[in-house]
């Protein structure tokens, strides 16, 4: 029985096990066909080797100690971040238990932003709350707004305005979750349109639809494929990923 091309190549590459190699060598002594096949494989193998050799380049000088230093630095930084996050969690929990604390203030803004559609104020800390209107928050440096899905119809109107407040309102109820710097709308199956007001002075604004970045503001630089009309940007929700 003739060996496969793979077995012949393994012998050429010297990765066949010794038993297999001896068997193949014995077979090759008496098989012109396999000798020809192996010679052809050898030619192709050499061609590939010579051509890949054209990609040779000098290796940059790097040391193990430098890499170890970087790994240790990163490990320490992770520990510091975990400690900071824990401290923030404690502070947030304390604020949430106090009347007039940070979380309650956010809830007050949520209520204020609900007009013109009247409905009970959603609780910001509860996930996937069903809100017929919208949400407002006052991030100091950045905000990310995320729509979970593209829609069969609908659009997002983004408006830059004065003031500190980010508001997201929908034309019909859409469940959402909100954190201090992030709003996520669970809009699968929805046909709503949305209006997003962002402060002109907010340094960083990111808008994602179905994981696709459709609007980005970094300081005064705005990158988006949305149609622009002055301070207003219009993003169709039907094909957000294909925007220019």
């Amino acid at each position, binding site marked *: 029985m003739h060996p496969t091309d*793979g077995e012949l190549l393994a012998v050429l590459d010297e990765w066949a096990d010794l038993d297999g190699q001896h068997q193949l060598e014995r077979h090759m002594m008496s098989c012109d066909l396999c000798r020809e096949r192996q010679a052809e494989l050898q030619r*192709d193998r050499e061609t590939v080797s010579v051509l890949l050799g054209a*990609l040779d380049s000098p290796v940059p000088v790097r040391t*193990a100690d430098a*890499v170890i230093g970087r*790994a240790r630095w990163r490990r320490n930084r992770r520990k510091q971040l975990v400690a900071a996050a824990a401290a923030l969690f404690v502070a947030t929990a304390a604020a949430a238990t106090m009347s007039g604390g940070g979380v309650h203030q956010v809830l007050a803004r949520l209520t204020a932003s609900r007009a013109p559609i009247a409905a009970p104020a959603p609780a910001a800390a509860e996930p996937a709350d069903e809100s017929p209107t919208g949400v407002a928050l006052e991030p100091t440096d950045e905000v990310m707004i995320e729509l979970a899905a593209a829609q069969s119809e609908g659009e997002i109107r983004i408006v830059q305005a004065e003031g500190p407040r980010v508001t997201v309102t929908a034309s019909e109820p859409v469940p959402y979750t909100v954190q201090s710097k992030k709003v996520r709308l669970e809009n699968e199956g929805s046909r709503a349109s949305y209006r997003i007001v962002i402060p002109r002075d907010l340094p960083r604004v990111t808008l994602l639809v179905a994981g696709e*970045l459709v609007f980005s503001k970094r300081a005064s630089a705005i990158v988006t494929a949305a149609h622009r009309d002055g301070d207003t940007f219009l993003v169709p929700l039907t094909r957000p*990923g294909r925007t220019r």
Partner: protein
Amino acid sequence: MESASFDDVFRSLFNERFGILYDYLHRLTGDAELADDVAQETFVRLYDRGAMPDAPSAWMVSVAHNLVRDEHRRVERRRRLLAIWQSPRSAEPEAEGRLLMGERAVEVHRVLRMITRRQSQLLLLRHAGYSYGEIARALRVAPGSVGTLLVRATKAFVTAYGKVSHASD
């Protein structure tokens, strides 16, 4: 006899394998800076792991592949956003990189992108001296199939190179 510490084993492995991994990644991506970053990051992650995997070389190739893939996704997303990507995707190296490479190297990179990514990885790993066992682990294929896959990759490469060199004549 005192056993070597993890740091000692790591240093020894780094000295032995960094250049090989860098070479492989440079050929795979055509991007020296990316290859350097990914090779270093791979070793950072190995150190961070705190223990050697069963097959360190194959483990590092797997990690490096993931890092390269993540980087390509990130770059592609950014390009889409900035609307620089105006023509259908050409996965050739950057223009600046091309200027630094010889004509033959450009052709070879073109050929590597005409065959499948898996075939490129197979050929480049073998060229870098990885064993069939390491290739099988790194690419998660059956050890017994590596020879056959390499034969197909070799033929695909030679055929594609014939087309490229014929077109440039």
